[in-house]
């Protein structure tokens, strides 16, 4: 990867922003799907995309994806609360559905799996349009069991579509541990479909970024799809209200010690890219921004009853 300080700082900012969202939104919403432990994947995967690129993000990290693509924080927070300022006008939740106008294909179908196909369709439209843009399909180890996942990968390989599949493997699907959900290593499926596949340490933002750079370049050059399995761990519960009585606290603690944010901070300090004070200041600033945006959204107007608008069902 390029040792470009803008990139390094940009990824830290996305990590820090992701953590700020967890802290602020998670404090208000029991259904918030936290990212603690998985911040490196979100930061590395969603940083630095082109404006025209399309992203079908994992629901766990969907707001980070939208913000990375230029979405407005205030409108995203309004979307979390179903307020009228939201991109979706209060018709759908923005924590899993980012704004299409910023190239985000959210979880519109409401079930995991179909967005992988939609990302392939977006990739096909980029091919047809000849714009050189690509698509990202990001999903969890749970979703990798869905038929949609296999069918999308197979089609993408056959048609050499410019799409990068990223499995954000946090080793657990709600309470189902990956070994009970996946018969074998997910990245090894790539060979069966006829595309390159790699497993990387999902807690090492630089490793994930390096794999992404390679895959994205391949896609842009017409080399077809790639499957990257970023192995990480869901330190957070499935959602904030999760009682988490299904796994060992010691296991969680062990992974918490491998915090990808702390690891990256140490790297940035050692390399002299950012110092601790600058990062602390950025962290505090982002928490304050997210908090202000969330508070403003709480005060925002709810949709008028007249906004049900059945006439909007058809174009």
């Amino acid at each position, binding site marked *: 990867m390029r040792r470009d300080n803008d990139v390094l700082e940009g990824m830290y900012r996305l990590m820090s922003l992701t953590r700020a969202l967890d802290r602020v939104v998670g404090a208000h919403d029991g259904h918030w799907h936290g990212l603690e432990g998985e911040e490196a994947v979100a930061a590395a995967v969603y940083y630095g995309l082109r404006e025209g690129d399309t992203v079908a993000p994992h629901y766990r990290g969907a707001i980070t994806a939208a913000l990375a693509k230029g979405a407005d924080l205030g409108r995203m927070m309004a979307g979390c609360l179903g307020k009228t300022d939201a991109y979706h006008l209060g*018709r759908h939740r923005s924590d899993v559905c980012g704004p299409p106008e910023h190239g985000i294909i959210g979880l519109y*179908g409401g079930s995991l799996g*179909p967005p992988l*196909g939609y*990302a392939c*369709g977006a990739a096909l439209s980029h091919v*047809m349009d000849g714009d050189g843009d690509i698509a990202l399909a990001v999903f969890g180890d749970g979703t990798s069991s869905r038929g949609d996942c296999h069918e999308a990968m197979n*089609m993408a390989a056959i048609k050499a579509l410019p799409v990068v599949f990223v499995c954000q493997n946090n080793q657990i699907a709600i309470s189902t541990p990956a070994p009970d959900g996946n018969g074998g290593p997910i990245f090894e499926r790539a060979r069966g479909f006829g595309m390159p596949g790699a497993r990387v340490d999902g807690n090492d933002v630089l490793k994930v970024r390096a794999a992404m750079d390679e895959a994205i370049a391949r896609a842009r050059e017409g080399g077809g799809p790639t499957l990257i399995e970023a192995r990480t761990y869901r330190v957070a519960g499935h959602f904030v209200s999760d009682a988490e009585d299904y796994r060992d606290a010691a296991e969680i603690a062990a992974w918490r010690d491998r915090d990808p944010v702390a690891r990256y901070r140490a790297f940035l300090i050692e390399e002299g890219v950012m110092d601790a004070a600058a990062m602390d200041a950025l962290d505090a600033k982002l928490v304050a921004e997210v908090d202000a945006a969330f508070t403003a959204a709480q005060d925002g107007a709810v949709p008028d009853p007249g906004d049900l608008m059945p006439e909007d*069902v058809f174009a």
Partner: protein
Amino acid sequence: MATQILMPALSPTMEEGTLAKWLVKEGDSVASGDVLAEIETDKATMEFEAVDEGVIGKIMVEEGTEGVKVNDPIAVLLEEGEDASAAEDAAGGAETTAEPAPTGAPEEDARERPEAKDMPAEGKERPSPASARAPDRTPDWPEGTATKEVTVREALRDAMAEEMRRDEDVFVMGEEVAEYNGAYKVTQGLLDEFGDRRVIDTPITEHGFAGIGVGAAFGGLRPVVEFMTFNFAMQAMDQIVNSAAKTLYMSGGQMGCPIVFRGPNGAAARVGAQHSQDFAAFYAQIPGLKVAMPYSASDAKGLLKSAIRDPNPVIFLENEILYGQGFEVPDLDDFTVPFGKARIWREGSDLTIVSFGIGMKYALQAAEELAKEGVEAEVIDLRTLRPMDLPTVIESVKKTNRCITIEEGFPVASVGGHVASQIMQQAFDYLDAPVITLAGKDVPMPYAANLEKLALVTVAEVMEAAKAVTYR
């Protein structure tokens, strides 16, 4: 208490009739449902039944009397124990009971119907957008246009080819659509003309290609996705129903899905329960999906071209049995048929037959048979189920006062059920008979040839229903 029995009205506009025959005499005990008399108009004869029990105290109008005004007293009914003097009092008009018009009343010329504004139901302040619009009666193509016979299969191919020439964003994708020219040869020749970039063969992967189609439409392309049959589309319900249909609304208008899902739908011939079902009602139920189900080749062509241009997802339901059937198609450079405009195949004043798709075959055959028996059916092809041209149906029913619907789909929550409910809500006072909704039988399609036939609608059933609603 003695009550008067009044001359019944056989329909809302009947003013007078002939009391042809009394079937009871003074002193007879009658029970509810007993036939009291036969009433005639110039159109029909009907039996007039007692509503209450009692004793016929007095007959006030002799049989054979013509020109008896509706609601004139024609007899007096006594309660048990009352004597004739009560009848005399009642005959003087002390107490009257308006007998309701009996069911089963064929009647007079529909053209005598009062204007809609006089009908009570129309006077209510009730939103009724469908009926507020006047039916569009412009012909599908200008008079004098040359036509040629084209099969439905060719018409569909021509529609896709013309739209692909017109718009670079249109492409066709599905199993066997390219090299094999379509499992049913509907995409014949498209690969040769447009190449494999725009005519895309896929593996057996409904999640895969429906997903890519939806994603491509999200991205601004105009995919035409062929399902080898709509039975296989069941695999892709999440893509179709949860994503294609809903995203425009859910995204607050940011992203729509201009896609056509097309392929054969409904029963073919002995392909079993999972391959023989009509999904018209199923898809028509979903807000966000447009649904077309053409019968003729001109509609197949004109509607498919409109579907490809439509900014919404369209479910385009074809029929294997109709693919080879030839119809006259106008020889025009750019012939389209709008969605939401029914086609009146045959005008008639005795009853309205509403159908779509292959149901039209039974409708038209039955209408011909009925004409031989002097019954003139108006036959309406809905052509699209979303949007649905209810104004044309309602206007027709206001003329004929009777309606049957025909479809091959399952009978529960059917298209016909919806049409019937709308007729009830918008034209209740015009109905002279309950609407009969003919549909496939409520059973998974059996394999045996004779059972399969029984499970579908037959011309004989249509004839029977037509006679039932016209009381013949």
